[in-house]
């Protein structure tokens, strides 16, 4: 069990400067592909805009980002570009030219690694400070559309001019942006970005291969922990949590256990601590659940579900102090065939599992017996010899 890996405080993020490049969709090697539109200067940021962007970036990272590391098997130059910039003494207070040059290199690699199936869009590169340390933040954006209403006055007549706008950069839907913030562990490396790490979100919007493009092909990074490990940890820690509170009655524990199995077995492709808490847990239990999962190293941000390590667990088992155990399916609980409750006021903590069903058979259960062996070590007495 790890300590909470994503304990970084995204609330500490400060935006120093940013630049945006346009990288249209293009098939690799297509000579007729639309050209990139690279910026030469950083964007102008007045204080209100800087504050607004910083808040949106904090919210985006807090809601979606997970720890990432450089993939040693990747030949992406991005980690090297970022490490060279951060370790070169220029971040934050350095000349804009160095930052601009680095950002153009990143945009060029984005273009070079694209296939025609990757959507075009904008690459936002920002010089930021995170927990007091310089970092580089990247967001892949697409223009969003909206409808705007603006009050106008002509003479004495007022009206709202309604217009369609198609060049929004950010809307309030934070869960669809591909974002990454990268840091290094300090100067003195080999310039290949070996010590680059950070946090990233690469939400799957159109299939796994397309989603892997941003994190893997472009950034040259991998998530610090694999999805199957995280899914198993989610399941195991949630199971412990369900049962560790002595004040939680048997009915509630059963409801939560069934919900957990349903979540693991559902067609959803993403696991979310917050989502599970809000959908399945009573209000008074949600914060404790989130805190215990965080302490156990289950990310707060959603992660892909990979139940390969937990698919064998499809039934609910009730273990009693007497050694009795009852195994049933979530469907039987949902159908009311099996009910669980603590309804003996004179015996608190004593649960009742009631099964209302046609009894098919009753049989003995135990370890298989051993046949007696003759004194000469041969088979049992009276046994026919092998032919």
């Amino acid at each position, binding site marked *: 069990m790890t300590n909470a890996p994503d304990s970084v*405080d*995204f*609330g*500490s*993020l*400060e935006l120093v400067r940013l630049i945006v490049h346009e990288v249209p969709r293009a098939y690799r090697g297509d000579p007729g592909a639309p050209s990139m539109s690279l910026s030469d200067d950083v964007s102008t940021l*007045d*204080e*209100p805009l800087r*504050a*607004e962007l*910083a*808040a*949106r970036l*904090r*919210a985006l*990272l*807090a*809601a979606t980002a997970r720890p990432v590391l450089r993939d040693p098997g990747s030949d992406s130059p991005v980690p090297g570009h970022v490490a060279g910039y951060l370790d070169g003494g220029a971040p934050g207070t350095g000349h804009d030219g160095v930052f601009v040059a680095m950002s153009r290199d990143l945009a060029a690699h984005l273009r070079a690694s694209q296939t025609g199936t990757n959507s075009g869009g904008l690459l936002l590169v920002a010089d930021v400070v995170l927990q007091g340390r310089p970092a580089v933040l990247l967001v892949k954006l697409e223009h969003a559309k909206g409808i705007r209403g603006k009050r106008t006055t002509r003479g004495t007549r007022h009206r709202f001019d309604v217009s369609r706008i198609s060049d929004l950069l950010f809307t*309030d839907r934070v869960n669809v942006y591909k974002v990454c913030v990268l840091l290094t562990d300090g100067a003195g490396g080999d310039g290949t970005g070996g010590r680059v790490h950070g946090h990233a979100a690469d939400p799957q919007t159109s299939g796994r291969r397309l989603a892997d493009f941003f994190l893997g092909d472009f950034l040259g990074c991998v998530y610090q922990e694999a999805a199957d490990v995280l899914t198993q940890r989610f399941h195991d820690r949630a199971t412990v949590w369900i049962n560790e509170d002595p004040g939680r009655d048997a009915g509630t524990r059963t409801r939560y256990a069934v919900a957990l199995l349903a979540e693991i077995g559902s067609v959803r492709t993403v696991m979310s601590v*917050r989502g599970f*808490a*809000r959908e399945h847990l009573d*209000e*008074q239990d*949600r*914060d404790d659940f*989130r805190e215990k999962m965080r302490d156990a190293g289950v990310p*707060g*941000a959603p992660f892909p579900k990979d139940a390969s390590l937990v698919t064998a667990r499809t039934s609910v088992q009730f273990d009693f102090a007497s050694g009795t155990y009852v195994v049933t399916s979530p469907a039987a609980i949902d159908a009311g065939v099996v009910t669980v409750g603590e309804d003996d006021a004179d015996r608190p903590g004593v649960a009742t599992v009631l099964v209302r069903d046609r009894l098919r058979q009753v049989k003995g259960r135990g370890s298989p017996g051993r046949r007696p062996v003759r004194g000469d070590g041969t088979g049992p007495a009276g046994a026919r010899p092998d032919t």
Partner: protein
Amino acid sequence: MTGGVEAARVRYVAGRPRYEAAAVDVAAAVRLRAVALRLSCEVSGRAKDTAGFVMKARVKNYADPWRQVTDKAGVRVVVDHQGDLDLAVSTVGTALTVLRVEDDRDAQGGEDRLAYQRLHLQVLAPGRPGDDPDGPVECEVQVRTRAQDLWSRSSHALLYKPAVAPARSVARPLYRLLALVELYDQETERVNREMQESPQYQDARLLREAELVFHAHVGAGYHLPTSLETVPVLSPLVGDVGAYASRLGRFAVLHHNKLARAYASYGPASAIGREGGYPLLGQPESVVVFERLDTAPEALRAAWDVALPAELLDEAAAVWGSDA
């Protein structure tokens, strides 16, 4: 005897500056502790003037004036009502080394007479360079209510310090007033207790606690009607406000720099705040919101979304870096 008083007077004149410093140090220690324990009180200190020192030694006919005049340095702690007297004693006791306590409140007998109920603590003043290790500097701390303080100021010179004993026509009315002092203190304590048990008072007190943190970072005023809508939503989330006040204080200390940045960038004096953006950051209850985002974001979200505009909480969460 006169020689003893004279010797003590000479000694006191030479050493009075040290007792002035002792009164300042003891008062400062009590004030700091009172803030931490959320005790509302006024603290004042003084070194006894030389004439007062001599007159006390002579009126009391002290055999050893230097040792027996124990209030050479004196501090007075005045609380709002008698319900806070015990807290005041604890405040002094945890801030300083207490040598002895004189508490007349539970003295046996005397039900048939009126008398000023003394509550004094003799403490060691914080040490200063050059102090005699064998002669630590002491300070007398008097603890009283506002009503007791008013009576004491009005009557002390007439009853305890005149050269001639006061006539019955002077003394009796003054002591009669003590009955009013007792009635005032008891009623004030009762009213205060009822207020504290009232849900409306809980909301007002929560707002007050939030203000104490908020105004450390924001000098501007705020929109009270908004607070009157928001605080009742937050109040049930924090439990007992008295206990929560300590928690909020610790949060404010732990996240002082982060709060400072948040209010500087998004508060009412910021560029975006002056444009009307992030309005919740212009309200003191935003401090409670930040604390709840750290501690119990789900409970906060569940309570907020049914009663208040979700975007206000979304903005606060974005500023704080929370995924609530």
